[in-house]
């Protein structure tokens, strides 16, 4: 038996009581509610089957796979440079971050390392895609809870970040900018000054959201103490990213592992929250967005000069071997296990995406909550459908 806090125990008892009422006392029929696959709150096509007693959930299960696109299999018929185009689309809000672990794994197999300037730019772009991703979460959070205004502020300020990404890479959503051994291009002229201004705007946006949403009593009463996930439960379900840090586990792959990236050159704080409830998850993400803007600010100041591409053969053949690289993506830990047989393309790729694990906790955490809390908890767990189904 895992350690449960008081609120979890109470909700468990309530769920048991609901079950008893359902089966014995009144012999009323429970209602099975299909939330999704087509539903405004599921960001795509996730389906939650919930058995309800009144408005209380007594049993819930997520059904994933409505958007399965078979990426792991598709990578086997692509060459290594072609794969980045594909995996851009896994977490479509933070596309650049998807490319990085795969490229790093390929580089690890080929035993090459990107030049320092490329490492810096990679890290900057990685953090920009984190900001683009999480700022949309912060706006969308309001919509899930019924406040319609924050999402427009999020779209307004996220546009600046997307413009930056577009300015450097040519693509707003799917940059496809990473190459094995470096980057496609150097940064354009004037990009660094603009970046600094945009980061200032994004910090203002974070303040605005904190005032408008996080400071709101109704928002607090809807999220505090709702959907508590204790640390050991979170770990046992393989959660990662802000969801894990919100349960009080101080674990961040940016800081905890040494990759050929520039995170160790920047000074940033890894925020954790002891509560583990929906509020904590949202709050940790808000703080992370702030930290990300600070990381970008520091890195653009100290960016070294030099080439952005290492010496790589024209036709890339990755030597035989296996490599596992994972990074701290906007949604959590994302990793690629790449198996190469010395061909032009990978022999097998296993993609570990964060949302799949994060969403797998729903049967545990949704037990005993009310229907509106389903939406709050799902919103605070923050998943992208492409990241669940791949």
């Amino acid at each position, binding site marked *: 038996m895992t350690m449960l806090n008081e609120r979890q125990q109470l909700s468990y008892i309530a769920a048991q009581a609901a079950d008893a009422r359902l089966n014995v006392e009144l012999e009323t029929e429970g*209602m099975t*509610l299909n939330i999704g696959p087509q*539903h*405004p*709150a599921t960001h795509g096509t996730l389906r939650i089957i919930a058995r309800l007693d009144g*408005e209380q959930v007594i049993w819930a299960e997520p059904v994933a796979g409505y958007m399965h696109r078979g990426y792991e299999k598709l990578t086997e018929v692509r060459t290594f440079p072609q794969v980045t185009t594909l995996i851009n689309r896994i977490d479509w809000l933070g596309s650049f971050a998807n490319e990085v672990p795969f490229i790093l794994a390929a580089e690890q197999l080929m035993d090459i390392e990107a030049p320092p300037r490329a490492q810096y730019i990679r890290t900057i772009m990685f953090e920009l895609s984190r900001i683009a991703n999480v700022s949309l979460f912060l706006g969308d959070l*309001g*919509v*899930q*809870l*019924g*406040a*319609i*205004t924050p999402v*427009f*502020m999020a779209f*307004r300020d996220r546009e600046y970040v997307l413009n930056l990404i577009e300015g450097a890479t040519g693509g707003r959503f799917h940059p496809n900018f990473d190459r094995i051994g470096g980057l496609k291009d150097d940064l354009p002229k004037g990009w660094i000054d603009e970046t600094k201004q945009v980061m200032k705007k994004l910090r203002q946006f974070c303040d605005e959201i904190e005032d*408008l*949403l996080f400071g*709101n009593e*109704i*928002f607090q*009463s*809807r999220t505090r103490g709702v959907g508590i996930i204790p640390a050991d439960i979170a770990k046992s379900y393989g959660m990662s990213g802000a969801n894990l840090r919100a349960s009080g586990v101080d674990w961040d792959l940016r800081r905890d592992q040494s990759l050929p990236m520039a995170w160790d050159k920047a000074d940033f704080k890894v925020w954790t929250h002891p509560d583990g409830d929906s509020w904590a998850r949202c709050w940790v993400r808000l703080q992370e967005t702030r930290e990300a803007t600070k990381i970008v600010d520091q890195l653009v100041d100290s960016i070294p000069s030099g080439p952005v591409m290492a010496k790589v053969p024209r036709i890339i053949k990755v030597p035989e071997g296996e490599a596992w690289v994972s990074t701290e993506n906007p949604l959590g830990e994302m990793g690629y296990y790449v198996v190469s047989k010395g061909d032009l393309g990978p022999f097998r790729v296993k993609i570990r995406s964060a949302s799949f694990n994060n969403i797998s906790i729903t049967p545990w955490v949704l037990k005993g909550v*009310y*229907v*509106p*809390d*389903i*939406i709050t908890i799902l919103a605070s767990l923050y998943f992208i459908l492409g990241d669940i189904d791949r």
Partner: protein
Amino acid sequence: MSTLAFEIPYWGQSLLRVLGGIVAVLLPAGTIVYVFLFKMMSFMQSRLGPMEAGPYGSMQLLAEVGKWMQKEDLIPENADAKIYKIAPVIVLLSTFLLVVVVPFGPDAWFTNFQAGVFYALAIGSVSVIGILVAGWSSANKYSLLGGLRAAGQLIAYELPMVLAVVGVVIQAGSMNLQQIVVAQNTFEIFGWNGLGMPFVVTQFVGFLIFMIAVQAELTQAPFDMPIAESELVSGYMTEYSGFRFLIFFIGEFATAGVFAFIASVLFLGGWGIPFSWFGWETVDDVDDWMNIAGPGIMFAKMMLLVGIIMWVRFSYPRFREDQLQRFAWKVLIPISLLNIAVTAILKVAF
């Protein structure tokens, strides 16, 4: 009160009243939708809102109405078709029934009903029936949840609303809405009659409770769980399309307008201006031009109150159902009871 130069026959009066009622319901509804839903919300969210249809998008509402009218009127296969069709009409009808007791001027009223407050509060909750049967007859689980939530919510907030009005009734000494208006414009504040005495000054707590309850009655955020688009798709309206959805839509904003009319009658002095300005003593002295100016004053006050309602709607997230009930029963009702007691004591004391 004055007499007209010519006598309007009874059928003519009735026709005028019906036309007036339609204008009094639909004109505020259209204005609210354009000014607040289209424009104020857009400006709050750093966008422009509709700009193409007509100058500054002012014809957008007509375009929307045209769109809804030509859409197919879908009825789910398992729905209880008859009730499903009637439900939106019940909701809109309650609004029309509500507006008949609102006075717009010394002679510009539909019916001068002695128990006007009582009638308004009773008819105001008829829309619950429409919403409940809409939710039930749609044969949709989301609709059912929405309908049940609406019923629970509207009944819970009916009480603080009634109790908040009791304070006004005690102070005015009448349940007739016309009398309440006159009372506010003739009373004196400690011997000074420059402003009359709008009950929002003396009944401020009651006014707050009334406005919160109105917000809940109208199912506007933060009390919009019956619709809750992120949870229940669209609550009891989920299955409705075409002109039946349009009726629900008009009903929502028309009810907002009419409740704001009632709130301005009860708390802001209604159609009147302080009678002392023109040396009027009673309602019979009031000049004829107030029958034209009165509706304008009412309209301005209505827009002010609906503006506040919409402002809150656009910036607040929604409560959870149990939090909403707790708020009604544990906070609003005790405070409004206390308000009644204090009002009664002060009424006797002064």
